[in-house]
């Protein structure tokens, strides 16, 4: 059984910007441990000479000219914003 601690789960939740309750910490500790244990079956395979696949097609870098194009207006960009002021997104303070 993979040994994932509650502290690790809390740390991962912080990295993922998720707030988790004590009950969720319990649940995720148990579930992540069993999923990771299951995933450790991959260690049965010797992959020392295997290249990782990041892309299934033989695609190289896809480049285009860096030219400005019309897309959306500032007004449109604000349409779905939860909070805004003077055409800018408004967020809570970053510093305490």
């Amino acid at each position, binding site marked *: 059984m993979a040994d994932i601690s509650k502290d690790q789960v809390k740390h991962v939740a912080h990295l993922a910007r998720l707030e988790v309750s004590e009950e969720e910490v319990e649940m995720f500790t148990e579930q992540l441990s069993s999923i990771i244990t299951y995933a450790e079956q991959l260690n049965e395979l010797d*992959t020392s000479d295997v290249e990782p696949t990041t892309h*299934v097609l033989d695609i190289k870098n896809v480049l285009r000219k860096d030219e400005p194009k019309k897309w959306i207006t500032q007004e*449109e960009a604000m349409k779905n914003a939860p909070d805004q002021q003077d055409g800018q997104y408004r*967020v809570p*303070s970053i510093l305490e």
Partner: protein
Amino acid sequence: MSLFDHTIKELEQKLHNHEITVQDLVAASYQRIKEVDDKVHAFLTLNEENANAYAKELDEAADKHTALFGMPSGIKDNIVTKALRTTCASQFLDNFNDPLYNATVVNKLNHQQAVTIGKLNMDEFAMGSSNENSSYEPTRNPWNTDYVPGGSSGGSAAAVAAGEVLFSLGSDTGGSIRQPAAFCGVVGLKPTYGRVSRFGLVAFASSLDQIGPITRNVEDNARVLEVIAGHDPMDSTSAAVEVPAYTEALTGDVKGLKIAVPKEYLAEGVAPEVKESVLQALKVYESLGATWEEVSLPHSKYAVATYYLLSSSEASANLARFDGVRYGVRSENANNMIDMFKKSRSEGFGEEVKRRIMLGTFALSSGYYDAYYKKAQKVRTLIKNDFDKIFEDYDVVIGPTTPTPAFKVGEKVDDPLTMYANDILTIPVNLAGVPGISVPCGFSDQGLPIGLQIIGKHFDENTVFRAAHAYEQATDHHKQRPQLGGANA
């Protein structure tokens, strides 16, 4: 008989002969939705006013010769539609009422003058195999509403099966088109990775996601793929490969077709009635002049673990964009910026989405990256090599789409690993990037549909369609219609 029992080609003929109008088609769609959708729950948002106005406009048009002229369609709710609410079935996007642009596939459907009836229910952010992870009412299986329709494109498959739309678009990351198509008795294709633009598809796992059509028959499926496929400068992973006329591949001729049947796809864990249906289908192929042999895809058993590590890792990165700043529902309870991110995400995401983000963040975190993420990428290579090797000698790979027919609502939802194992036969196809289709091939003792999966080489959708179509024409499973039975009906 419903209008949607006809093929696109037949309806096109009726439109040209003035037997029906586009307004008839659109009215049939909304009428059926009003009759059955409080049982099926396939739709999250309807586009009725716009669709009716557009239908009228199309009926008055002089030229009615576009490829999908007037055809009522549904769009999975993770495909962005301009000014039409797009939620991904998540509370986080509950208020995303005014998207700014169309996904490329939606522009392509519009260009061929299909009519968008509405947006279809799904597992939240496409994470799930039963539609029980929708944060709205879960979709039910039209064949028996006590059962799940599959997922994550459960709404897309159920809407077509129940005759609410003529065709729909879904997305498939680990089986999310093919598995619900199998469970609902319809035809669902996951195209080759790169065949269809992902621009405007809300990303789950970018190296695996593909959009594809769900239809009642193979011919319609080929017709819709012809429209949505092709290179798109807005998606750098879309392939600059010419789009063939898929409908012309449907010759009915499979003489000499070489079929590989992986023994792992008929092994323990596959229900006897599913195995029997697939063996019967292989007899049909024999009678049509095709041949089949048993082969091995030896790394199949590692696919589920590989998939959950890779897809969750990619998801944890992709879903970082949901921060409550530019769109979506922001938590009212935050004191500072980080707190606002955390509370908005925790209040907006459901449990499965959080679980995958947690798993992915763990697999990518410092000290674990090589052991889990990179290891899984290497095993992905082995799984892909298995397919490459088989396709040196065979034209298609055939097996079941799912190990069992649809399961009951609530049966697997509390056990993530059991739910994940349900995707064992569809996941390898995404990892290898090859195309796969599910077509109806029979029914269980309980009257639930069973799906046959046909897998092809990269960019060889033609052979996949040809094989699927020949089988379909020789059988009548696809002509059966669901009766919306079930205890809660």
